[in-house]
């Protein structure tokens, strides 16, 4: 052994000084466009969202839908928004972004000027996006733009950054985006990397939020503020923010984007707009690709009878109040006519006749009784109605898809009893409201299997939203004619005649946002910034908006009568929906974790927490 050890020799020091084959050095990373692109891809993937990016569960926590999937998540139908609902405090991501910005400045010597500027701008866009997510959920947050590094002096106070004022964070976002937007122009051909128009779209949205908080917070009986301005924006700042939002929106509208109109069928067109990756509507998206990066939104939400896999389907059940928020094309309000003034049911000749002439976006968003998906019609029928003692008695079958034999009497035999797709008011994996979601549910082959999964993309920003942002900002600035034009343009795409709105109100704009942007992670924030969330989700069990209701179709079995074979509709509160949505004042700004306050005593609490 001793002899062998003597045989070692060491005359080449560089043997110890080789480049590692398993480590990437800073010089390599920050000078290689390929490595940098994959680093930035990681940051794009971490862009934050609350109810978006195919978050099936989050979409069932508001008034647009309820959870009808597996019972283990029935708490979504039986909860109240906690103090920490929507809490977001991802300074880990902020640090990663700051570190990248500093290292590009320090190490990226071999990149061209244009490349360096572009990566720098992309990362700053992502950082602005993250700060927007922080400010809309938490109010004014500490603005940290450099790495915070401890100097081991025993004094941590330099690391403790206090919260900025709420408007300062919005100003920071605007200023950042203004500075970088031209540097992003090289990406303009891409829809999945930050480009100039994505920056403008973020400006458009963020400035609109700041403006409406400035306006509507101060119209409350007691505005939600903190003494230091960490929460609450002065009312006199509203019009400047609205103007900034409108300017950004106008620049996007005049750019080469267009509302998606590739399908002549307006309803299918609205669905295709988000499902197909063609057209010029989407400004910035999170993309997916089969066998590479997929999601299971179609698996979660496919109509029960169209499943290609087992164990799950039908998770999101859209609510009746949401379906009724779609107007009729002739300008009537969208309330469905189920009963006459005398209290009798209205009999419809076809199961989908009650939805005839509705805003085409209803078809594009919701699968309702009598409609089709993937070329196959769905089988939604709650049961049969039998005339007895001068009124209809409603009977549902024990099995889904059961044909009516002689169970209810010989004379009623024949025909479908309860559809394969329900609805059932207390079962899982079948609609509890009588509606299924169509929007974002991919119709690609095998998209609803877990093996293949879906690859349709998530639009962070699209032109439809920009039109509504422009309409709202213009309306608030008193430019009513312009605002009406934007709204009408969008409604034409949905099948309405030209100039369908002549007397624009804020309520119309708000309803347009609900129907156009449903399930796109807008409603929670919209209601918050208009300061009406506590009025809409008032926690009252008798409120048709705070409680998710369903609409159950029944086939009339009444031999010899003129209504035999027609359909009546019953408004139902599903048994699985347990507690009305209740948004408290404390939910306008989520509580900051005690852990954060323990570490940084300069952090001021949010109101009511």
């Amino acid at each position, binding site marked *: 052994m001793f002899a062998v050890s003597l045989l070692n020799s060491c005359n080449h020091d560089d043997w110890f000084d080789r480049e590692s084959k398993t480590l990437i050095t800073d010089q390599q990373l920050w000078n290689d466009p390929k490595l940098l692109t994959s680093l930035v891809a990681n940051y794009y993937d971490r862009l934050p969202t609350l109810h978006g990016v195919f978050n099936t569960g989050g979409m069932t926590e508001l008034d647009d839908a309820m959870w009808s999937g597996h019972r283990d998540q029935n708490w979504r139908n039986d909860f*109240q928004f906690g103090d920490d609902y929507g809490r977001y405090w991802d300074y880990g991501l902020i640090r990663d972004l700051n570190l990248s910005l500093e290292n590009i400045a320090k190490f990226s010597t071999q990149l061209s000027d244009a490349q360096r500027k572009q990566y720098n701008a992309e990362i700053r866009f992502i950082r602005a996006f993250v700060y927007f997510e922080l400010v809309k959920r938490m109010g004014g947050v500490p603005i940290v733009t450099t790495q915070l590094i401890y100097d081991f002096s025993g004094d941590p106070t330099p690391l403790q950054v206090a919260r900025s004022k709420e408007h300062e964070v919005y100003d920071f976002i605007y200023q950042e985006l203004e500075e970088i937007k031209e540097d992003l122009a090289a990406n303009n051909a891409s829809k999945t990397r930050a480009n100039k128009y994505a920056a403008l779209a973020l400006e458009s949205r963020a400035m609109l939020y700041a403006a409406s908080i400035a306006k509507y917070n101060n119209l409350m*009986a*007691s505005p939600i503020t903190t003494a230091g301005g960490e929460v609450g924006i002065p009312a006199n700042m509203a019009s400047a923010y609205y103007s900034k939002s409108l300017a950004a929106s106008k620049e996007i509208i005049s750019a080469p984007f267009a509302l998606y109109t590739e399908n002549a069928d307006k309803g299918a067109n609205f669905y295709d707009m988000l499902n197909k990756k063609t057209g010029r509507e989407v400004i910035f998206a999170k993309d997916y690709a089969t066998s590479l990066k997929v999601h299971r939104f179609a698996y979660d939400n496919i109509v029960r009878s169209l499943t290609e896999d087992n164990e799950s389907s039908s998770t999101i059940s859209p609510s009746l109040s949401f379906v009724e928020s779609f107007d009729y094309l002739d300008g009537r309000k969208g309330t469905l006519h189920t009963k006459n003034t005398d209290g009798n049911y209205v009999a419809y000749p076809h199961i989908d006749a009650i939805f005839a002439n509705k805003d085409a976006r209803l078809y594009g968003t919701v699968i309702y009784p009598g409609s089709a998906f993937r070329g196959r019609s769905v089988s939604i029928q709650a049961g049969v109605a039998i005339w007895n003692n001068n009124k209809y008695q409603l009977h549902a079958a024990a099995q889904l898809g059961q044909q009516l034999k002689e169970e209810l009497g010989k004379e009623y035999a024949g025909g479908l009893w309860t559809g394969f797709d329900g609805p059932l008011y207390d079962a899982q994996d079948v609609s509890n409201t009588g509606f299924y979601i169509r929007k974002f549910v991919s119709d690609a082959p095998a998209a609803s299997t877990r093996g293949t999964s879906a690859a349709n993309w998530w639009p962070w920003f699209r032109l439809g939203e920009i039109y509504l942002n422009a309409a709202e900002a213009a309306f608030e600035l008193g430019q009513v004619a312009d605002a009406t034009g934007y709204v009408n343009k969008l409604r034409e795409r949905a099948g309405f005649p030209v100039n369908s709105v002549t007397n624009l109100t804020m309520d119309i704009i708000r309803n347009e946002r609900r129907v156009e942007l449903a399930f796109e992670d807008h409603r929670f924030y919209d209601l918050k910034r208009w300061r009406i969330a*506590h009025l809409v989700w*008032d*926690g*009252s*069990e*008798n409120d048709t908006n705070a409680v998710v209701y369903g609409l159950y179709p029944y086939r009339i079995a009444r031999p010899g009568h003129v209504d035999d074979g027609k359909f009546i509709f019953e408004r139902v509160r599903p048994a699985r929906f347990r*507690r*009305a949505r*209740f948004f*408290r*004042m*404390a939910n306008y700004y989520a509580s900051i974790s*005690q*852990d954060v*306050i*323990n570490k940084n005593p300069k952090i001021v609490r949010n*109101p*009511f*927490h």
Partner: protein
Amino acid sequence: MKLLSSLLACISLLFVGCEYDNYEAPKSTLSGRIVYEGAPVGVRNNGPQLELWQDGFPLRSYIPVFLNQDGSFAASLFDGTYKLVRKGDSPWLQQAADTILVQVKGNTHLDLPVMPYFTISNPSFQQNDKGITANFTVNKIVNTANLQFVRLYLGKSILTDQGQQELRVDANLSLISFGQPVSILATLPDNLKNLDYVFARIGVKSTVSNEYYYTQIQKIALK
């Protein structure tokens, strides 16, 4: 044999407990009521909360204290000094100094004074052939507060409030003058008419807060 005994030795190791990580459960109780001028303040079931804090530890975390709808509360605690905090978005005024020092030793009782925006005094309910009439007086306690709703709630369950009720009748605010008797008449709907009894409560809400001040629940026999 050797194998068996070594196996036994291994298994017996599993039964060894460490006494250092076993704390005794707290034995003291802090209980009390939310009161205004000695009278308990009713709240929504599962509604407003209190917070308990204790100093002297490096990291701070609060103990939530839930309120029963009659305004009573209880918490199991170790003996010591606690800070009790009355939070905002409650039917009472958020005090600038919202913290009360509480010395918990054994079972401690505490009446926690609050300043409601409005109160309701002298509630009484009469059942007649028309329905149920509630008589009461609305009092303004905080001068700057504005009245938003005065409501009569009827329900099948003892937990009856703004969230959970069978019938809600709004008082006409223009007819209400503070300190003067008012009444609300509720006509019983079909689903309540034939019951043996219903529960009744009156709530009052200011524009400032999202929560109501409630009277204590009353059971009204219908038969």
